[in-house]
């Protein structure tokens, strides 16, 4: 596994406000970097820039490396990043296994089926293989969403307030599930809740840009 490296990232809004200026950080595999800061400080924009889905009117410059490969200019679908957002974005027109297959790399049919059954089993979701996402509970949806990301065999994982919408009892459970599931990846976590941050994480505080 390779480290995720951001160098000299500057993001400028159309009104010339700089969300971040010459920001650099590196996340080694197995490490978590928690990005913290007030809303509007640019946390989500940094994440969007890393996935290559930043809105066109926002200007950004900087370098992005995954190990020795530059990701700048690589289409989103070729970056091999896992992404979890506040909402789970389970595709409502696909069942749970179809959602997972959408994430899974192509290959041998039996092997793919096995991977899905196995991962759902490990996550305690075996009975929900053919379920309609609309019938799942919040915690189940979060887990399926994470599984979908992991099955796409990402080289890094980006989490944007992934636990914010869960109720407090579930939250701790999903946190543990998440950190256990992505032990070997570099993980970037955006949050405003200190309780989300695991013990092995580094923390990067962003300044308030609303001056």
């Amino acid at each position, binding site marked *: 596994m390779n480290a995720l490296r951001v160098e000299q990232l500057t993001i400028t809004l159309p009104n010339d406000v700089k969300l971040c200026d010459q920001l650099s950080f590196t996340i080694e595999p197995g490490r978590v970097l928690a990005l913290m800061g007030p809303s509007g400080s640019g946390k989500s924009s940094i994440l969007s820039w890393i996935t*290559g*889905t930043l809105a066109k009117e926002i200007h950004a410059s900087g370098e992005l490396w995954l190990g020795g490969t530059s990701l700048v*200019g690589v289409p989103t679908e070729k970056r091999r990043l896992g992404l979890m957002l506040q909402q789970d974005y389970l*595709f409502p027109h696909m*069942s749970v296994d179809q959602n997972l297959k959408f994430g899974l*790399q192509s290959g041998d049919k039996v092997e793919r089926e096995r991977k899905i059954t196995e991962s759902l089993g490990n996550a305690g979701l075996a009975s929900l293989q*053919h*379920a309609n996402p609309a019938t799942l509970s919040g915690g189940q949806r979060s887990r399926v969403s994470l599984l979908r990301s992991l099955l*796409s065999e990402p080289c890094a994982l980006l989490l944007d307030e992934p636990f914010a919408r869960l109720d407090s009892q579930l939250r701790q459970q999903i946190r543990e599930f998440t950190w256990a599931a992505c032990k070997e990846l570099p993980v970037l976590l955006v949050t405003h809740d200190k309780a989300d941050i695991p013990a092995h994480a580094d923390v990067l505080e962003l300044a308030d840009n609303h001056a």
Partner: protein
Amino acid sequence: MPHFVAHGRVLAALAAIGVALLFTAPLLIGLTGTIAPAFGLMPELAPGNGFLQLLEDPRFLPALKLSIKTGVIATLLVLLFTIVALVCLHKTRWWRWMLAALPPLLAIPHAALAVGLVFLVAPSGWIVRLFSPWLTTWERPPADWVVPDAGGWSLIAGLVMKEAPFLLLAAAAQLPRLNVDALLKIGLTLGYSPARCWSRLVLPTLYPRIRLTLFVILAFNLSVVDMALLLGPGNPPTLSVLLLSYVHEPGFRAAASAGALMLAVGMAAFFVAVILIEKSIAQVAKRRRESGHRGHGIGLFRQIGKYSVVALILCSVFTLVALLLWSFTQRWRFPAALPDTFTARHWLGRSDLLLDPLWATILFAMFSCVATLVGAMVWLEAERLDAVKKIDWLWYVPFFIPQVTLLFGWQAASLITASDGQWLTVAYAHWVYTLPYVVLILAVAWRELDPNWNNAASVLGAGYWKVLFRIRLPLLIKPVLQAMAVAVAVSVAQYLPTALLGAGRHNTLAIEVVTSFGGVDRRVIATLAVLQSLLPLIVFSLALLIPAAMQQKQQQHS
């Protein structure tokens, strides 16, 4: 800019510009083909001075007056109907029922509605038959009125029945965004009567949002051809119909073009006039708002308003029932309330009479449906990728140029290029008239869909096309199917483009209903009109049922 994105965007931009050019080219060619003959610039095709020919025709001024009268009165009544329906029905148990009834009524083609209306309100029509002779003592139809009447009131009634649901639905769609319930509550607690709450609190914010629709309706009412042929007076007819007869009259193309041009200019003048009237009404309304008058809520008025709205809707439903009855009639003499003898032979006996036009109609409708969907998707995707700018006004252009103005010129061009009468020419015209609806309907959903759906799929490794077809389209299935249904409905209703560019070779149901109205067996016309109405009703039902069925299938799985 990353290279790959730039590359994709250039392609998207090129495709989108292609769509826009395909859309605007006939508009420009059509206008040129009308303007040039009007000013004597095409002497071979259109000899003579068109404006002089026009002014020399004793029918011109009466026809112009009639067009203005029917167009303006019908539009005012449509607006009145909408306001009355809002004030009198909103928050009553009728409201939801009405909102459910309106879309299918909106889907009934103009021609079918017009034919049905005649069957309903003529002196020997169904209404009189229902009440004769036991109530009216009429053994023979009364001679006191005729349909279509010389004053244009039948046409006005038809236009109101067709356009009122359109404006009312447009207005109803805006209500949730205006927070109407809160506005009404505040107004009522301040002591204003319900009607005053609407006129002083809701309408001032609602009107700007339905104004464009109202303008579209005014433009349509001033220039409509098919309904005017069926419901308008014949002698003289409305201006559009008179101009259409010129096109077919040897040596009168210059006059037709000049008239069509005047109609377009006159329409623009009307828009200016409406804007001025709006301004003065706004002034008055402002003063009234500040006056503090509370008004007395008059329950009777609300009751009258409520029942007149319901009556109008029932009238539309009854036109359909009248058509259906006639299509199964063998004999039905006045004053029997129902047919004396029924038969299914109009449906079964002469399949060529129904199947040929049905097939022609379906082919154009399917082409319009698929080709406009592709065109709209190309444009909206390019817009989403920031490859082209949003230019919603462009799609409104065909709504604001009278059909005769555009199509006379287009037909002249098709004569010169020998493309008249060809299937593709007619299909192209259907596409141009259908595309705006599809783009405008899809645009809302397309722009509002959370971009994170795209992003979530992309980071999982799905490329552009996979995201488009596996994620974006399925998520937007409802609006996509609705837009396709509207495309079918619009294409099925097209009369003038098919008639003018088709050189009589492409007899769709719309053409058959309009051209056979004067002569053919009433029962056959009814059958054609029912068939023409069924097509959009079927596709609208499918547009509702398919997503529901898909959802149910998924739920059964779980």
